[in-house]
């Protein structure tokens, strides 16, 4: 029986106090400030109402009056479309619009906008916890305690709670094209991706990806800092999204995908691709999808409503069951994923020290860019 690793995960511990926060705000005063200087703590508790089948702290009538929610996310375009379509079905009076970029690019964009006093975003979803912590430090998130948070362990929320939450989990193993890889050569452990036989035929994601950051960090911890330097000799190819990775894998343009997200594998297998998924015994690096309402949003009530919806059973069903999303839900009462498996069926690897993980981001970007030929 595989350990329920994900229960034992520590919570991220950013050092945010009221004082420190205000100091940071003052220091940034020379430059247009990223977020509000109002104290993030000590907000009045929102009034909780029930709408459809979930609880919300937002003023639904006001949200519908606002009439729109702007979503910045990292999933593929089609995936975001499915998500927002589901929201619109439940709340037809609220229009949706979005920007899709991989996490690194997305965060770069939102910080650039805010540093120029453009506040365009209501809801932000990232695939890496590092920029989320950073954003929280800068006061970018609206401190909003969603009533739906009650259904989650505190480890899956921000600290202090109210900035962001884990709306789902994705994890990755190895995948290969059965037509291109002989059975005796098929990879079984992580070390197999270093096999020189796979040189020039192996793919992964670019440095903008949160999932990639997680894998880099975890395998480094497991196998040492040289692991990825060895991997660089494979001359891997980097891409922006798992759709591309699996597209190429299915067509045989790549033989092996070193960062094969289970959700992507499932989707393409169903399309008829001749690919195989490998879950190495040492574990599968995992990363949460982080969602939060943004401070100084153009449609604050709609933002809160969206968060409540996304974290509720209703929203989680979309995240978990839609084949193009296929996240694992972390709700206490979550049903199994569409494939029948639960998160507990996999050995998931998470960082133990989130601060260390966050601090490693700059190192990761530099090294990974070099590995990818930039």
């Amino acid at each position, binding site marked *: 029986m595989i350990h329920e690793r994900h229960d034992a995960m520590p919570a991220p511990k950013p050092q945010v106090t009221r004082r420190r926060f205000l100091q940071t705000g003052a220091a940034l005063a020379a430059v247009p400030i990223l977020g509000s200087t109002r104290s993030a703590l000590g907000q009045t508790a929102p009034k909780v109402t029930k709408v459809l089948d979930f609880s919300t702290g937002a003023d639904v009538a006001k949200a519908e009056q606002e009439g729109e929610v702007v979503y910045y996310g990292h999933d593929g375009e089609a995936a975001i479309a499915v998500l927002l379509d589901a929201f619109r079905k439940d709340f037809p009076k609220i229009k949706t619009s979005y920007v899709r970029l991989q996490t690194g690019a997305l965060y770069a964009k939102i910080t650039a906008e805010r540093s120029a006093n*453009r506040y365009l975003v209501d809801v932000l979803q990232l695939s890496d916890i590092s920029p989320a912590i950073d954003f929280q430090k800068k006061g970018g998130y609206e401190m909003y305690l969603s009533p739906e948070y009650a259904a989650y362990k505190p480890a899956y929320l921000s600290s202090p709670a109210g900035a962001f939450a884990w709306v789902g989990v994705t994890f990755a193993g190895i995948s290969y094209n059965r037509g291109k890889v002989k059975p005796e050569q098929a990879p079984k452990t992580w070390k197999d991706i270093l096999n020189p036989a796979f040189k020039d035929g192996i793919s992964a994601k670019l440095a903008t990806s949160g999932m990639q950051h997680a894998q880099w960090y975890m395998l480094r911890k497991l196998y040492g800092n040289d692991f990825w330097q060895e991997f660089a000799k494979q001359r891997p190819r980097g891409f922006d999204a798992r759709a591309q990775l699996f597209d190429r894998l299915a067509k045989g343009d790549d033989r092996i995908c070193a960062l094969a997200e289970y959700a992507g594998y499932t989707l393409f297998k169903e399309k008829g691709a001749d690919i195989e998924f490998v879950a190495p015994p040492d574990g599968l690096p995992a990363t949460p999808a982080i969602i939060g309402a943004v401070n100084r949003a153009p449609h604050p009530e709609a933002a809160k409503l969206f968060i409540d919806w996304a974290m509720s059973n209703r929203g989680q069903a979309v995240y978990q069951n839609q084949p193009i999303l296929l996240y694992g839900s972390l709700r206490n009462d979550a049903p199994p994923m569409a494939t029948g498996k639960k998160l507990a069926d996999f050995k998931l690897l998470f960082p133990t020290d989130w601060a260390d993980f966050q601090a490693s981001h700059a190192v990761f970007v530099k090294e990974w860019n070099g590995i990818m030929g930039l």
Partner: protein
Amino acid sequence: MERFTRARSWRPGPSLVSLVVGGASAVLVFYPIVYLVQASLSVGDPQARPPEAYGLANYAGLGRYAHIFWNTVLVAVIATVFAIILGFAMGWILSRANVPGREALEQLMALPYYVTPLMGALAWSLIGSPSGGFLNQVWRALGGDGHLIDITSPYGIAWVMALFEGSVAFVMIGAVMKSMDPALEEASQVLGAGRFRTMLKITLPLVMPGVLGATIFVFAEMLGSFSAALVLGLPNRFYVVTTAMYQLVSQYPPRFPQAAAMGVALFAVMFVMVYIYRRIISRGTYVTITGKAFRPRAMDVGRLRWILFGVCLGYLGIAVVLPVLTLLYASVQRLATAFPRAANFTLANYVTALSLDAVRSALWNSLLLGGATAVLGVVLMGFLSWIIYRSRLPGAGFIEYVLMFPQAVPRLVFAFGMLWAWLVFPIPIYGTLWLLLIAYLTVFMPLGIRTISGVMLQIDRTLEESAQMCGASWGYRLRTVTMPLLRPGLIAAALLLFIASVRELGASILLMGPKAKVITPAIVEAWFSTSTELTAAMALLQTLAVALALAFLFAVARRALRPVGE
């Protein structure tokens, strides 16, 4: 009739107009460049704006990216060679040989420009990927080994660049060929030299300066190419300066200073190229250009003409028909392959594409923006062309230099400077279509002014002078004489600006916002984050919509061209 005026000293009018126009142009064009250079000199915290400290460290650090600069030059050189060969061959065939259907073929030569480099890159990616490309699949099915072509190699990328971005070579060389007095060749033939010898000894040397100018111009354009390298190069770890810049600013933390330094380096090279080009054309060529366009009598090449006809059709086939068919073929499959099973066919991609709000709103935005660029651009550029070439206002040379300046800046680099600059501009246009409009009008200024001034200069100056002698002020002249005569040229320029605006990727990919999505970057995003099949469907939908819009515009334009009088 009373006499008009007493003698007066210089009126402030003309100088003031020049000053205002020159000043506004200079701001529009140089503002982003200034910010670009400022960003490149920032050596402190990359996130601080304005920069904390200045220094040359970023330039010193460019050595790291030497392989990227090498890639850029390599690909640009190969693409230029391809483009010039193609352009010269087509230009010669269509202006010198009596190929059947010459006039029609000449019009059709503009089609690759409408296919857009992005579509071309997508299609050729489907055709020529080493493993999954259709052509290579066929090759293997026929018993071949490995792959026949690798479109992701530098040669492949250069090939796609030449096909879809090199059509300007054909236009320029064709123009040079047309301006050559056919009597020069006829004299050679009368004296006994054969066709081939004539081409080698007479035609080639005479058009050489024009061809040289075209080569330099095309090379400068290729340096700034983005689409082909993005679609084909990125998956193969092959970066050029433009794609590297794009990557650097799309990460967190974004590396603006390094990207800016790369951009300035590229810009410097292009600047030198464009400078050389202008020196060549201003010195004048020794081809007689009398202002009359010759309609040279075509040489009779005998049976060869059918072969040459086939060559022209072949070119059009490869550049237009093949990409469209390939995309069509891929868009109706679930998982695109050269030999699909029956179950593989589906229309789901189109259903999804049409339902994607991104597609609908992006398409609408693109058409809207294209229309605005075309209409505003034509009015603005018509007015500016007149100021530069006809008004004899002081400082016209300066204004021309300023407005032609964006030619020397790769469009992505320019957009980068704009992004950096307009992020802090007080007027809140960042993230809106207005910013894109301003960007497009600025980067397409050289294109529009070149087109319109070409027509303008063909209008005999005396037509305006006679209006002057009848007493018309310059505003009255502009309205009653210049503009109406320019109408055909203005319409051609409007259509050109429309399509240039819709196909633009480098400038728009950096400046888009949530409410300001346009279709070409949206297709790129789709290619990165969804399947190839869905992307193919989106690309074809875009082509269809644009084709319809163009047809509509053209019909409207024909009506506006009705002759006056009886």
